[in-house]
């Protein structure tokens, strides 16, 4: 029995570790795509808000899908992904990253999807993977939209000391739009990848 218990414990912990690595790696990848492709293009048209918010923030898709699968257990992996991505993509800002506002921003961003899932659960719609509610892409986008609103309000408040009052609402809306568009693009990309795999497997 001990042997079975040990193997079970080992299997569970290795499963969690793998999930942790996948979520963190997906977050780093999506943030990399945002930093290298979205941000430079956005800086050309909206330079004044680019430093705070992105119009297409792909990591929000990772937040929502990871929280759908792992629930609150996704939060540490999302935080780890944010921290790793910060060190990888902004190596010169190591000390800046430790400022309270940025640290609060990372922590808050990681819990927003969880808050949205829990809010939806309050109205008896449990969308977590493995629960009664059938997984639905539309439901996922609704939860992503709620999470993006929660995130935009929180992030704008966190950075309120650094944002000009006249740009406050604009940045708040950009956060919300960026997160939602990021989630939709993330899901569309996965849809196309799965479709490509399926069609190639047939041929």
């Amino acid at each position, binding site marked *: 029995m001990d042997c079975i218990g040990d193997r079970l414990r080992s299997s569970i912990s290795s499963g969690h570790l793998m999930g942790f690595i996948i979520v963190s790696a997906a977050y780093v990848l999506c943030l990399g795509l945002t930093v290298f492709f979205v941000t430079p293009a956005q800086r050309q048209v909206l330079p004044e808000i680019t430093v705070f918010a992105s119009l297409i923030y792909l990591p929000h898709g990772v937040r929502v899908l990871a929280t759908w699968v792992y629930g609150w257990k996704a939060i540490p992996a999302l935080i780890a992904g944010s921290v790793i991505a910060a060190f990888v993509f902004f190596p010169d800002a190591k000390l800046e990253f430790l400022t309270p506002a940025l640290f609060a921003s990372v922590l808050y961003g990681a819990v927003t999807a969880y808050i949205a899932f829990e809010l939806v659960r309050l109205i008896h719609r449990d969308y977590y993977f*493995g629960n009664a509610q059938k997984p639905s892409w539309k439901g996922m986008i609704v939860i992503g939209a709620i999470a993006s609103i929660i995130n935009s309000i929180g992030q704008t408040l966190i950075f309120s000391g650094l944002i000009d009052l006249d740009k406050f609402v604009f940045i708040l809306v950009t956060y919300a739009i960026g997160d939602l568009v990021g989630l939709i693009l993330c899901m569309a990309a996965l849809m196309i990848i799965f479709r490509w795999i399926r069609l190639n497997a047939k041929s």
Partner: protein
Amino acid sequence: MTKLSALFALRCMLREMERDVGLQDLSPTELDVFLAAHSVSDQGRDGVTSAEIRHHELVIDLAQATYHRALRSLLELGLLERADGFKTRRYVVRSDLSS
């Protein structure tokens, strides 16, 4: 919960998304029946009967049950529609696809 079942659920969810955004892929039989219906409809009539589609060279060799299953599936997908105003059952290719 296993990693595989999460992946499976994700694929199912995104397959539903594919269908809803109109990227549903047809089986080879469904595609043949659809092309046959489109071809027969092109001859300028208001709707075609199942027998007319059935006699098209693309589908004439299909088993009766297979043909009807494909026809039903195309109706369910909304690619074919029942034509109104006829005593016999006639079908039209969805208007936005027939032009």
